[in-house]
């Protein structure tokens, strides 16, 4: 009994330790302030990123902090949501307690957009949704200080689907089993994840729009992880090696895992070529395109995201509304309260565009 009780206490302590760990890291994140540029900062922005460990987020975060440090008009404080809705919520509340003027939210709590807007309205804080789902028109109507800066996720799927369609039409031998259909493996990221859904759906739609008949050999969830994709593709290749014409991956890491498995099964180099497409244009992804293994990737430029968020805040700070002119960043489209960041397709022809 005593032992059971002590175990229970230990477990409770462990839980609270996890919870403390979460809030600690947000406090630690908070100290990475980037002020003291040219003049005194006139406003403070709290930024909640979904996960500091994500490559894309790390780049966007560095850009935003550097832009703030260089300009100095707005002080930027950021926090890591650790890919956890509860942590995100407590980070938001911390920022409200600190009295921020802008809340930049790389939102992962997609079911609570209306509540988040409601809370920002009560606090009188300007709310900027960054690199996440857009609020609906009704939700925008709730509060006039809501903005949305994000890439159009649909574009990424369309770009890789079109690249695959182009390859298919130019290479009749790509139909390896001669059934007249493009047989593909689909590597999904996280189930229900917005990017995963639109990337897979739009890549297939682009193929369909190009008049190509497709057949799914297997759809598998690899959580955006290279090792998982490598393991699963190895297994699928053993089972149905001759039925596979292409691999569509929802990010580069999974595409690269698939390429490792394909190499191990004798593809590429001396062997047959199988087109593999991914999204993100990571350094390794671009390297694989140069090497001739990966066919295409789509670049969502984190530098453009970071700069656009900062530029939007400086424009708002001057009391202006964003327009194409006063934002003035290449690769963006301003529409009302939306700033769209355009994806760029990267193939062997333009790998230099991936350097940012």
């Amino acid at each position: 009994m005593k032992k059971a009780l002590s175990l229970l206490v230990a477990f409770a302590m462990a839980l609270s330790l996890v919870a403390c760990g979460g809030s600690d890291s947000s406090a630690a994140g908070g100290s990475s302030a980037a002020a003291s540029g040219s003049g005194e900062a006139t406003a403070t922005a709290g930024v909640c990123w979904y996960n500091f460990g994500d490559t894309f987020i790390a780049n966007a975060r560095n850009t935003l902090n550097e832009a703030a440090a260089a300009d100095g008009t707005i002080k930027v404080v950021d926090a890591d949501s650790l890919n956890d809705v509860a942590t995100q919520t407590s980070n938001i509340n911390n920022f409200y307690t600190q009295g921020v003027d802008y809340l930049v939210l790389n939102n992962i709590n997609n079911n609570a957009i209306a509540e988040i807007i409601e809370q920002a309205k009560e606090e009188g804080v300007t709310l900027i949704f960054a690199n996440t789902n857009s609020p609906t028109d009704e939700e925008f109507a709730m509060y006039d200080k809501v903005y949305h800066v994000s890439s159009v996720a649909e574009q990424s799927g369309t770009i890789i689907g079109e690249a695959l369609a182009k390859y298919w039409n130019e290479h009749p031998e790509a139909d390896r089993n001669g059934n007249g259909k493009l047989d593909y493996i689909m590597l999904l990221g996280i189930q229900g994840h917005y990017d995963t859904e639109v990337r897979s759906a739009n890549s297939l739609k682009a193929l369909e729009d190009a008049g190509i008949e497709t057949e799914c050999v297997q759809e598998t969830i690899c959580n955006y992880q290279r090792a998982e994709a490598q393991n699963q593709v190895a297994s699928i290749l053993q089972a149905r090696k001759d039925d596979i014409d292409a691999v569509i991956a929802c990010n580069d890491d999974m595409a690269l895992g698939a390429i490792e498995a394909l190499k191990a099964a004798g593809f590429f180099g001396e062997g047959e070529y199988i087109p593999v497409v991914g999204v993100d244009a990571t350094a390794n992804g671009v390297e694989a395109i140069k090497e001739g293994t990966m066919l295409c990737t789509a670049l969502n430029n984190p530098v453009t995201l970071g700069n656009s968020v900062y530029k939007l805040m400086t424009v708002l700070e001057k009391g202006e509304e964003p327009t194409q002119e006063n934002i003035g960043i290449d690769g963006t489209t301003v529409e009302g309260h939306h700033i769209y960041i355009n994806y760029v397709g990267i193939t062997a022809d333009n790998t230099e565009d991936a350097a940012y």
Partner: protein
Amino acid sequence: MTTKKKFNGKQFLVNYAIYLILLALIIVITVISPKFLSLSVFKDILMQSSVRIVVAMGCMFIIISGSADLSGGRMVGLSSLIAASLAQQATAGLKFWPGLPELPAFVPVLASMVVGVCFGIFNGLVVSKLRVPAFLATLGSQMMIFGFSSLYFNKAPNNSQPLGSLTSGFKALGGGSIAGVPIIVMIAVVVMIIVWILLTKTCLGKEIFAVGGNLEAARVSGINVFKIQMITYSIAGACYGLAGALEAARTASATSAYGQSYELDAIASCIVGGCSVAGGVGTVGGVFAGVIIFNVISYGLTFIGISPYWQNVVKGLIIIGAVALDVRKYSSKK
């Protein structure tokens, strides 16, 4: 006579349940897709299991000594980053350590093992000297290690970019073969042999079992419990470090997300493989079968095209079944 025979049959079932489940799984998958029974599938599964085997071997020392370790997965992650960062080609586009010359493959492997041992010693000290319960001590070090991984990964000029462009010598550890046998599998086999010798043929091994079986009895009979705890955590750390290097070599990359929850898989493999949660019991063969069973599930179910979510259902059921058997096995002996 007949009753005795019946009893033995039951005992056999309980003792060899893990192997029987494995056999049943393979038969079911083969019936659905006969291609499963091939040498290349067998090789694939062994290659995918190798890293997990090395992690589980490390974890086994800790479980046998009656302790716990939740930091293994993150240690694999950190050491995969360290190994990959030291194994890059001189001409890598995005070099983690600019100006670092190409190093022979053993340097990154040794470096990651040293880091693993350091954190193992840290775990051992916290558990034995600060007397923090192992479960909490290693939960804490798990967080710290992930923190260090993220800091290392985010170091300029890398800025959290997945590491790549590794030397072919290093990648051969994960993907190369000698006479048709994958090098990574040979490494896992060597680790298993060393662990088997350590546990069954040396005094140290007997002392580890003694400490796990009954800590007080071991202490009274003159075993230096502090020494044993330091040694088990250090050996485990070395295994995690090696596993991290192998994971980087196998996937030709590394990120801070590597190794996540590998410790739980390793603990599950140990328990399913017959290690007692209470300590003092465990065999290399059993743990090996425990690792293989989980890999056969994930490989086999993907092979026959079943959703990965079913894999989790099946794995969970097997863990529960194994622990239920474990409880039975030892309660029937008493």
